C-alpha cells in the first residue's frame, strides 16, 4: 500500500481513501503486463536454442542456455540489411520532399491572404480522410503510367504532399511574432529568404514532431509497397518480413521468426525509448496522418 500512497501523493486529500481509482490502476497494471507479453515472448524466443524443441517454444521463462543462433539464421535467410536500407531510403526521401511542400504550403495558410483560401483549405482537410491507402488501385495505375512501377520513387510519391504536416506548420508559423518578419522585410529579404531564415529555424520542434510521425508511419507501411514493388531487392522491411515469415512458418522456425521481427522493430523501439517524451507528444498532435 506504500506504492499507492506515493501514486496518490498529489491527489486531493479527501479522495485518497477511495477504492475505485486504486482498482483502476491495478487493472491497468495487469493489462500493461499482458500488453508486454508478445514483446517478452519475442525476446525469450529469439534467445532460445532450437534444441529446446517446439513444445517449449511458448515458455516465457528464458532458456538457461541462451544463444544467438536465431539472430544469425534470420540474418542469413532474410536480406535484412538490404530491406533496412530500402526502408530508410523511402522514409528519408518522403520526409525531405514533405519538408519542402509542407513548409511552403503551411506558410501560405499562416501568413498570406489569397483568393480561394477557404476552398483550398478544405481541399487539404479532405485529404486527412482520403488516406492514400484507400486509393491504391488508381494510384498503382498512375505510378505504372509514370514508369515508376517497381521503383522506390513510386512507393514514395503518393505521400509527398501532407495535409497533416501543412496544418502542423501553419500552426507553428502562426505562433511566430510578425515583428521579426517586419524587421527582415525592411532589410529587403525576399519571401523565400524570410521563410528560410526566420520561420524555419524557429519551428524546429514542429519539424521534429512531424518527422517522428512521418517516419514511423512510413516505416510501417505495407500494402502500398507490396503492390508497387516486384523485385526482391527493392522490398522494404515490412514486405521483406512478411515474405520471411511465410518461408520460416513452413519450417516451424518460430525462433527465427521472433529474431527477424526483433530486428525489424528494434530501430523504432530503441529510438522510442530514448526520445519517449517527444514521441508521445508528437503522436498526440498527429491524430490522422
Amino acid at each position, binding site marked *: 500500500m506504500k506504492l499507492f500512497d506515493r501514486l496518490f501523493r498529489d491527489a486531493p486529500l479527501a479522495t485518497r481513501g477511495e477504492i475505485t481509482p486504486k482498482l483502476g490502476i491495478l487493472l491497468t497494471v495487469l493489462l500493461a503486463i499482458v500488453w508486454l507479453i508478445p514483446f517478452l515472448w519475442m525476446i525469450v*524466443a529469439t534467445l532460445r536454442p532450437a534444441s529446446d524443441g517446439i513444445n517449449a517454444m511458448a515458455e516465457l521463462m528464458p532458456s538457461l542456455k541462451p544463444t544467438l543462433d536465431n539472430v544469425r539464421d534470420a540474418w542469413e535467410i532474410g536480406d535484412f540489411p538490404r530491406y533496412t536500407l530500402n526502408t530508410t531510403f523511402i522514409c528519408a526521401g518522403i520526409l525531405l520532399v514533405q519538408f519542402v511542400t509542407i513548409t511552403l*504550403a503551411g506558410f501560405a495558410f499562416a501568413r*498570406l491572404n489569397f483568393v480561394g*483560401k477557404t476552398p483550398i483549405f478544405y481541399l487539404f482537410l479532405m485529404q486527412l480522410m*482520403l488516406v492514400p491507402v*484507400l486509393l491504391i488501385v*488508381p494510384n498503382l495505375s498512375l505510378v505504372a503510367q509514370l514508369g515508376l512501377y517497381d521503383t522506390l520513387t513510386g512507393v514514395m510519391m503518393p505521400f*509527398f504532399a501532407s495535409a497533416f504536416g*501543412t496544418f502542423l506548420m501553419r500552426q507553428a508559423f502562426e505562433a511566430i511574432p510578425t515583428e521579426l518578419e517586419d524587421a527582415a522585410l525592411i532589410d529587403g529579404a525576399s519571401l523565400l529568404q524570410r521563410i528560410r531564415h526566420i520561420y524555419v529555424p524557429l519551428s524546429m520542434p514542429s519539424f521534429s514532431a512531424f518527422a517522428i510521425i512521418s517516419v514511423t508511419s512510413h516505416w510501417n507501411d505495407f500494402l502500398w509497397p507490396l503492390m508497387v514493388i516486384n523485385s526482391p531487392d527493392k522490398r522494404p522491411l515490412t514486405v521483406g518480413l512478411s515474405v520471411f515469415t511465410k518461408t520460416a512458418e513452413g519450417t516451424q522456425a518460430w525462433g527465427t521468426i521472433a529474431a527477424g521481427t526483433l530486428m525489424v522493430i528494434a530501430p523504432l523501439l530503441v529510438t*522510442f525509448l530514448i526520445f519517449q517524451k517527444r514521441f508521445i507528444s508528437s503522436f498526440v498532435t498527429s491524430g490522422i496522418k
Partner: protein
Amino acid sequence: MDVLKRFSNRFKASLPAYLLLLPSLVFLALFTYGAMGRVLVDALYQRATPKAPVRFVGLDNISAVLADPAFTGAVVNNLVYAVGTAIPSIGLALLFALALARTNAVSSALRAALFLPVLIPMVAASALFMFIFLPNVGLLDYYIGRLLPVLPNWLGDPDVALYAIMIITIWKNAGYYMLFFLAGLQAVPEDVMEAAHLDGAGPYRRLRHIILPELKPTFLFVIVIATLNAVTQVDHVFVMTQGGPSNSTNLVLFYIYQQAVEHYDVGKASAATLLTLAALMGLTALSFRTMANREGGP
C-alpha cells in the same frame, strides 16, 4: 472593365500564395483528387479479358460488386470488425488514461508499455500473434489452453478467426487512443473536480457528470480515427489469414486488393473503392466540423 481589373489585381496579389501551394497541390491533384476521378471513370469500364480493350459498361461494375457475396460478406465483416475493435479499444484507452492521468515515474513507464504496440508495424505484430494463436504449441494454448476443455483453432475456425484478428487491432490501438484521452483529461478543470468531491460526489459521479462531458470532443475525434483505422488497417489480414478461412476475415480493403491484383479486375476493384469512399465521405461530412475546428478553421 473596373471589375475585371480589380479581379486581376486580387489575383496578382494572390500569386505568391498560389506558387507556395503549388507543389502540394500538384501531388494532391495527382494522388488524391485525380485518383478519385480515375476511380470514378475506371468503375464505369470493364475488360472481357485482361488483354481485351476496355468498353463502357455504365453501372454494371457497381451492381456486380453489390451482387458479389464476397463483397457483401466483406462489408459485414468490416462492420463487425469496426464496432468490435473501436468499442473495446476506446473503452480500454479511457481506462488507461484515467488510471495514468497523474504523471509520475510509475505512470510514465506504464504509458510507455501500453504505447509500444502502436509503434511497431502491423506486419511485425502479425508475426508475433501468428505464434500466439498457433494451435497446441502457441502461447495462448500453452498457457490458457489448459483451462479450456476444447481448444479453439484461433485462426483456422471461421467462427473465431475474425475475433482473433480483432484482438490484435485492440492490442495495437488502445495505447494510441489513450494519448488523446490523456490530453483531453488535461482540460478537465481541477477546481471543478475538487468542488465536486467536496460536495460528496464519488468517483463514478465525477466520471459521469464532469469528466465524460468534458471528454466529448475527444470521443468524437477518436471514434473517427478508429473508424478510419477499421477500414485502412488490414495488414494483418494479408499476413495471417488472406481473408480466410472461407472468407470469414475478408475485409473491404483486402477485397479491393484481391480484385485488382489477383483477378486483374480493375473495374470491379474501382467500383468497390468507389463504394468505400462514398461511405467514408458520409463519415467525413459528419465529422468535418470537428476536424476543421481542430485544425483551427480556414
